[in-house]
């Protein structure tokens, strides 16, 4: 018997509203059709109405999870247009806050995944650990998500010795927690039963469908924009975490590996924090021109296109978020799966719908 089931927009496992119209043959999905637009806010249009400095605050609100990296990416674009050289300390601080964002995002995503396959205790433990990362962000910037610490030309806030010690203590706590939690996430029989071999995305399909982030790296594609060395990543040294399983388990393994990698990156960035100004002053508007800037968010590559005509308002601001790029791979994964696996597969991609719709 064939039927169409509307999965979402309100569904217990979906953190944000998106609908997938699933065509089923018995319990097997034969095709999936995404229906978007429930939280489209028109932020790209609004950006054309605000001046280029206000846009730095606006783009931070594209996403409620990886907000800092949005503002950082935008600021890098304006800095390239205006030919501003960001001071080294600001570059290192940008890495610190970016990696803290990655950690809290991965902990949120893996927690939601655990909740999706019914392991509520693991979900709560992972989210409790996430609180330590949020505390570190709050102690250094005064905010837990919308840090507001990135500005054009550098950063708005510094990290002093007391704050550095606080962050390092929190990282020790997180690392200690992860030593207990990650083996459960990756070794537990029931977890593996729900993730291994589920939501297959082979390397060729991942490439053809334009997958990014852990979705691509879980399919064996060594693709991470931090490899380009933006901010201080080039000086800190970096190798992407790649798994070849091509399934939901491999994507979870990538996030687990990146959690530990981010702890290491933050420690090294704080250890080598150079002394310099926090930002460079600038005058006037960005000159006419077009620039494309990309950065690695927790979910993958984010893309910003900025077009200026020399006025205080940009002619065009375009954002392509990682979840938008991962929509096509997600549809490929869902085709052929069974209905009970749909929730797990969706969450293995770690979708951010508010990002996607902007």
């Amino acid at each position, binding site marked *: 018997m064939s039927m169409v089931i509307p999965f979402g927009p309100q569904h217990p496992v979906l953190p944000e509203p998106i609908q997938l119209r699933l065509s089923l043959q018995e319990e097997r999905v034969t095709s999936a*059709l*995404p*229906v*978007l*637009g*429930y939280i*489209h806010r*028109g932020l*790209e*249009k609004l950006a054309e109405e605000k001046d280029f400095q206000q846009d730095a605050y606006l783009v931070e609100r594209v996403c409620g999870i990886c907000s800092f990296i949005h503002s950082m990416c935008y600021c890098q674009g304006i800095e*390239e*247009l205006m030919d501003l050289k960001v001071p080294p300390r600001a570059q290192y601080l940008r890495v610190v806050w970016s990696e803290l964002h990655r950690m809290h995002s991965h902990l949120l995503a893996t927690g939601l995944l655990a909740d999706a396959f019914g392991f509520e205790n693991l979900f709560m433990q992972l989210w409790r650990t996430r609180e330590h990362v949020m505390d570190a962000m709050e102690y250094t910037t005064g905010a837990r998500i919308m840090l507001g610490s990135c500005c054009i030309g550098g950063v708005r806030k510094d990290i002093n010795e007391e704050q550095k010690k606080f962050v390092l203590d929190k990282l020790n706590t997180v690392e200690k927690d992860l030593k207990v939690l990650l083996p459960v996430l990756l070794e537990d029989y029931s977890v593996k039963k729900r993730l291994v071999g589920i939501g297959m995305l082979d390397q060729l399909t991942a*490439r*053809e*469908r*334009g997958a990014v982030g852990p979705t691509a790296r879980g399919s064996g594609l060594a693709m991470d*924009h931090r*490899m*380009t060395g933006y901010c201080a990543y080039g000086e800190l040294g970096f190798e992407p975490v790649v798994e070849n399983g091509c399934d939901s388990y491999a994507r979870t393994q990538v996030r687990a590996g990146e959690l530990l990698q981010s702890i290491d990156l933050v420690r090294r960035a704080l250890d080598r924090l150079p002394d310099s100004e926090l930002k460079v002053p600038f005058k006037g508007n960005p000159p006419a*021109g*077009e*620039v*494309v800037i*990309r950065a690695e968010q927790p979910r993958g*590559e984010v*893309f910003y*296109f900025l*077009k200026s005509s020399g006025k205080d308002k940009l*002619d*065009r601001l*375009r954002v*392509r978020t990682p979840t*938008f*790029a991962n*929509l*096509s*791979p997600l549809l490929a994964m869902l085709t052929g799966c069974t209905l009970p696996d749909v929730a797990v597969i969706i969450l293995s991609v770690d979708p951010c719908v508010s990002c996607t*719709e902007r």
Partner: protein
Amino acid sequence: MMTVNEVITIDNMIEKIASLLPRHYRFVTMTAVDVDTHFDLYYHFDLDYELTTLLLKLDKGAKLPSISGICPPALVVENEIQDLFGIVVSGLNLDYRDHFLLATDAPARPFCRVPGVSVSIVETEKTGGEK
């Protein structure tokens, strides 16, 4: 600054884009810009972190051939551009008819600089599916 690697036309765009894909270029996204007299459509591809950008200058009112047949991830971007700019995309594998992102009661083609004179898509406003 962004470099435009090649300016393409409606006649040769499919051929040019199709030639990139077997060489492992990854489709990143498309960007549409309303420059009053016409639309600039940028097709962005990535190979080993290097961005390749093709530019198509599309007259207002002209139909844009879809590349979703040769490049599946372009489908969602083309539907978004159709929604926001009112550019009619022909040959879409799946056509949301201007309601990919926009609700049925949302203003039509909100990203057009001069609404009403950009393209003639009156018929699609009436035939759009419900969200």
